[in-house]
C-alpha cells in the first residue's frame, strides 16, 4: 500500500503545472548560471596568473636588501576557488581596503548554486507540499484514502517519499547537466576530493530541500484550507530565508557591542603614551636622586646629554653623537664616572622594563579579538534558528568558498610570510658577507625564493567543521516530520 501511495503522489506531482515550471526554471537557471560562472572562472584564472606575473616581476626587478620592504612587497595571491563555477566565494577583508572596487555585487548579490538551492528549490518544495494534506481534504480524496485499511503513518510516509522524489527530479537533473558541463570543460580541473565535496554538497542540498518539503507538509497538516496553508508557508519561508539570517548579525552587534578597530587603535596609543609617561616619570625621580648622590659629577654627565643613555626617556630625544663620544671618553678615563654611568644605565633598564611591562599587559587587542569572536559566534548561533544559515555554513565551508576558507588562506599566508622572512634574513646575511658595503637600498637577487602555493584544506577538517550545522539541518527535518506526524494523527479529514 505504501508503494501505491508513493507512486500516486509521485505521478500526481509530476503531472502538475508546478513540476513543469520548476523543472524548466531549474534547468534554465542552473545551466545559465554554471555556463556564466565557468566563463567567469576562466577570467579569474587569467587574472590570477596576471597577478602572479606582476608579483614575480616586481620581486625579480625591484627586491632590495631591506626585510621590512621586501615583506611589504610580498602579496601572496589566492587562486580562484575551485568551486567558483558553482558558488561565488565571499570577498576577503583586503578587498574592502581599496578605494576603487566593483560596487555591483554589494547591491546585487551574484547568483549561484546556493541561490538555486536556497531560494528556488526551497520555494518549489513548499509549493509541492502546502496542499498535500489540506488540498486533498478539500477535494475529498483524503477521506476516501483514510476510509480504506491504511494507517495514517503510511499515508504520511508515502506522501513524504513520493513528494520528495518528484521534487528532487528537477534538482538532480539540473545538477547532472551542470556536472556534465563542469567535467567536459577543460578549464575546470577537479581532483577526487573536489568530486567528493560535490557529492557531500548534493547530500546537504537534499537535506535542505526535504526540510522545506516537510515544513510545507507540517503546515498543511495544521491547516484546513490550502489557501491558508500557502499563506502560512510563505510567511514562514520569508521569515526563515529572508529575514532571520539577515537580521541576526545586526542583532548580535546590538546585543554584544565591540569597540571598532579605530577605537582600539586609539586606546592602544593611549596606553603607549601612558607607558612612556610612566618611564619618564621614573627617570625624572632617578635623575633627582642621582643629582643628590653624585652632585657635580652628575651635572657634568647631564651636560653631555647623558651620553645618549636612555636619552629618549630623559630628554625626549636622542643625544647628539658628539655628546655620546664625550661621555664614552669620560667613562673610559674615570672609574668613578663609569660607576655612576653604570648605575644610571641600570635605572634606564628598569624604566624600560616598566614600559615594556605596561605594554605587554595592554589588553586592548586581545580584548577586541576575543570580543569579535564572541560576537561572530553569537550571530552564527542566533542565525542557526534558520535552516538557510545552517545550509550556507555547510555549503560554503565544504566547498572552500566561505569564511573558514578566508581564515585558512590568512593562516597559510602568514606561514609563508614567516618562511619568506627567514629566507630573506639568510639572503641578506649572505649578500652582506660577500659585500660588507651592502646598503638597504641595494638590489637583492631573490629569484630562488620559496613560492607561495595555496593548497585546499583537507576534506576531513572541513567535514569536522560543518557536521554540527548539518546535524541541525537533519534535526529540523526530524522536528518537522514529527510535527507533521502529530498534526496528521489528529487531523479531521472530513
Amino acid at each position: 500500500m505504501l508503494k501505491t501511495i508513493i507512486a500516486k503522489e509521485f505521478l500526481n506531482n509530476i503531472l502538475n503545472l508546478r513540476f513543469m515550471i520548476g523543472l524548466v526554471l531549474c534547468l534554465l537557471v542552473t545551466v545559465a548560471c554554471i555556463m556564466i560562472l565557468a566563463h567567469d572562472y576562466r577570467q579569474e584564472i587569467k587574472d590570477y596568473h596576471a597577478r602572479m606575473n606582476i608579483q614575480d616581476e616586481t620581486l625579480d626587478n625591484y627586491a632590495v636588501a631591506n626585510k621590512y620592504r621586501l615583506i611589504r612587497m610580498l602579496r601572496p595571491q589566492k587562486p580562484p576557488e575551485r568551486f567558483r563555477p558553482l558558488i561565488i566565494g565571499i570577498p576577503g577583508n583586503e578587498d574592502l581596503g581599496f578605494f576603487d572596487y566593483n560596487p555591483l555585487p554589494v547591491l546585487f548579490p551574484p547568483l549561484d548554486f546556493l541561490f538555486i538551492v536556497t531560494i528556488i528549490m526551497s520555494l518549489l518544495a513548499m509549493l509541492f507540499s502546502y496542499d498535500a494534506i489540506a488540498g486533498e481534504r478539500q477535494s475529498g480524496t483524503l477521506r476516501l484514502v483514510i476510509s480504506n485499511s491504511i494507517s495514517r503513518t503510511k499515508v504520511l510516509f508515502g506522501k513524504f517519499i513520493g513528494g520528495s522524489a518528484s521534487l528532487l527530479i528537477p534538482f538532480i537533473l539540473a545538477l547532472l547537466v551542470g556536472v556534465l558541463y563542469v567535467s567536459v570543460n577543460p578549464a575546470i580541473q577537479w581532483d577526487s576530493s573536489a568530486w567528493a565535496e560535490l557529492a557531500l554538497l548534493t547530500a546537504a542540498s537534499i537535506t535542505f530541500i526535504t526540510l522545506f518539503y516537510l515544513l510545507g507538509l507540517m503546515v498543511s497538516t495544521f491547516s484546513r484550507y490550502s489557501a491558508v496553508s500557502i499563506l502560512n508557508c510563505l510567511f514562514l519561508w520569508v521569515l526563515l530565508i529572508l529575514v532571520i539570517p539577515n537580521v541576526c548579525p545586526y542583532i548580535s552587534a546590538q546585543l554584544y557591542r565591540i569597540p571598532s578597530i579605530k577605537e582600539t587603535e586609539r586606546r592602544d596609543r593611549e596606553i603607549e603614551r601612558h607607558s612612556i609617561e610612566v618611564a619618564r616619570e621614573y627617570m625624572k625621580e632617578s635623575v633627582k636622586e642621582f643629582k643628590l648622590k653624585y652632585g657635580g659629577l652628575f651635572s657634568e654627565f647631564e651636560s653631555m646629554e647623558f651620553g645618549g643613555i636612555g636619552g629618549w626617556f630623559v630628554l625626549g630625544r636622542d643625544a647628539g653623537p658628539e655628546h655620546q663620544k664625550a661621555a664614552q671618553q669620560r667613562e673610559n678615563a674615570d672609574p668613578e664616572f663609569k660607576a655612576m654611568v653604570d648605575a644610571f644605565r641600570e635605572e634606564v633598564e628598569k624604566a624600560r622594563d616598566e614600559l615594556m611591562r605596561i605594554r605587554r599587559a595592554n589588553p586592548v587587542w586581545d580584548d577586541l579579538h576575543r570580543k569579535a569572536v564572541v560576537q561572530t559566534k553569537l550571530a552564527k548561533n542566533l542565525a542557526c534558528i534558520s535552516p538557510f544559515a545552517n545550509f550556507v555554513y555547510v555549503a560554503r565551508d565544504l566547498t572552500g568558498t566561505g569564511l573558514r576558507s578566508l581564515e585558512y588562506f590568512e593562516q597559510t599566508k602568514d606561514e609563508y610570510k614567516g618562511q619568506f622572512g627567514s629566507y630573506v634574513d639568510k639572503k641578506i646575511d649572505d649578500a652582506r658577507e660577500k659585500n660588507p658595503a651592502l646598503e638597504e637600498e641595494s638590489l637583492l637577487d631573490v629569484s630562488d625564493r620559496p613560492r607561495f602555493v595555496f593548497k585546499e584544506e583537507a576534506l576531513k577538517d572541513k567535514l569536522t567543521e560543518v557536521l554540527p550545522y548539518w546535524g541541525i539541518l537533519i534535526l529540523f527535518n526530524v522536528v518537522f516530520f514529527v510535527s507533521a506526524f502529530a498534526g496528521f494523527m489528529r487531523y479531521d479529514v472530513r
Partner: protein
Amino acid sequence: MLKSIIRKEILSNLLSYKFSIITILSTILILVSIFVMYRDYCLALENHDILRKESSRGVEVIPPTPLGIFAKGLDENLCRSWELQGVGVEISSEGQKSLNNLFKLFTVPDLLYVIKVILSLCAMLFTFDIICGEKETGTLRQTISNNVKRPILIIGKWIGGFISFILPFFMAVLLGTIFVTLSPMVDMNAQDWAKLGLFLLISVIYLAAFFSLGLLISCLTHRSSTSLVISLFVWAIFVFLIPNLGNILARQFVEIPTVQQLELKRGQIMNRARFELKRIPKTQPDFEKRLKALEFRTIKEGDQLDEDYRNRINSLVKVSQSITGFSPAPAFTLLATDIMGTGVAEERRLKKAAQDYKDFCVHLYYIDESVDEESELPDFHYQRSSVKEILGQGGLSNCLILILFNILFFTGAYVAFLRYDVR
C-alpha cells in the same frame, strides 16, 4: 459604481486572513528593519566621529547619511576615510572594517530590501486570486451579469486592492520614521526629507508594478492555484534572477581586473619610480627638478591606471543596467540608493571629486609650483547630491522604467480582463 467596487474590494481584503498575515508581516519587518538599521547608523556615526578626530591632515572622511537607515546601499564604503597617495587614492586605515565576518554572508535588512523583496511578494500575494479567485467562487460571473462595465470593474479592483495593501505599509513606515526622527542622533534637513519623500513615492510606484503584475497573472489564469505558482516564479525571476544573473552576465562583456591586480600594478609603478630615483645622482644641480618630474610622471601613470579601471566599472554598470532593464527590481534598487545618496551615482561622484581634488593639488604643487608644503593645500569639501542632480544623473530614466512597467502590466491586465471568460 466604481466607488462601490472599491469599497467592496477594501472591505473584503480587510476581513481576509491574507490581509491580516501580510499586514502583520510587513509591519513587523518594517519596524524591525528601521530599528536595526537605526542602531547600525548610530554605530557608523560613532565610528565616523572617531575617524574624524583621529584623522591627520590630508585624510578625508564623509559622514554617514541618516537616509542610510532606509537604504544603506554603498554608504559603508562611501564613509571610509581615504587619503591621496602618489599613486592612486588609498583607504587610510585598516581599522574601518567590521570584525564580525558574518555580515559578509547575508544581505543588509534595510527598508529597501524589505520593499524590494518582501513587500513585492506581498503585493503579488494580494492579487494572485483577485480575478481568478472570484471566478472560482462564482462571484465574478454574478458581478459581470449586472450593469457593470469590465474596465470599471478592473480599475475598481486595482484601486481598492492597492489601497488596502499600501495603507499598512504607510502606517508602518510612518511609525518607523517618527521613531527615527525623535532620536537625537538623527539630524535630517529639508533636502533629506525631500529625498525620503521621493524614495517612498518610488517605492509606491515599484509596488504598484508588482501589484499590476499579480493582477495580470490573475487575469491570464483560471485557477488561483495556477496563478499562485506562476506569480511566485515570476516574482523570483524578477526580484532575484534577472538582477543577480544580469550582474554576473555583464562581467562577461566588460573585462575588469580584480582590485588586487590593480593594487599590484600601482605597487609596480611605485617600485619602478623608486628604482629610477636611485639612478638620479643627488649631487646633480637639477636633482630637485628631475625628482619633481619623476614624481609627476608617476602620479600621472597611476591616474591613468585608475581612470582606466573606473571607465571599465562605469561601462560594467551601464551594461548591467541594460541587461537588467527587463525587471523593475534593479531599476528600483539603483534609483532608491541614488535618491538616498548611497548609490552607484553617489559613489562615482565621490570618486570624481577625490580625483578632481587630487588633480587640483598636483597642479598647484607641480605645475603652478605655488605651494611647497602639504599644509598649504586647500581643504577637501564634499556635499552629497541634491534631488535635482540625482534625477539628472540617470535617476529619471530608472523612474521611467518603473512607470513603464506599471503601464505595461496594467494594460496587459486590462486587455486580458476584457477578453476574460468569467464562466
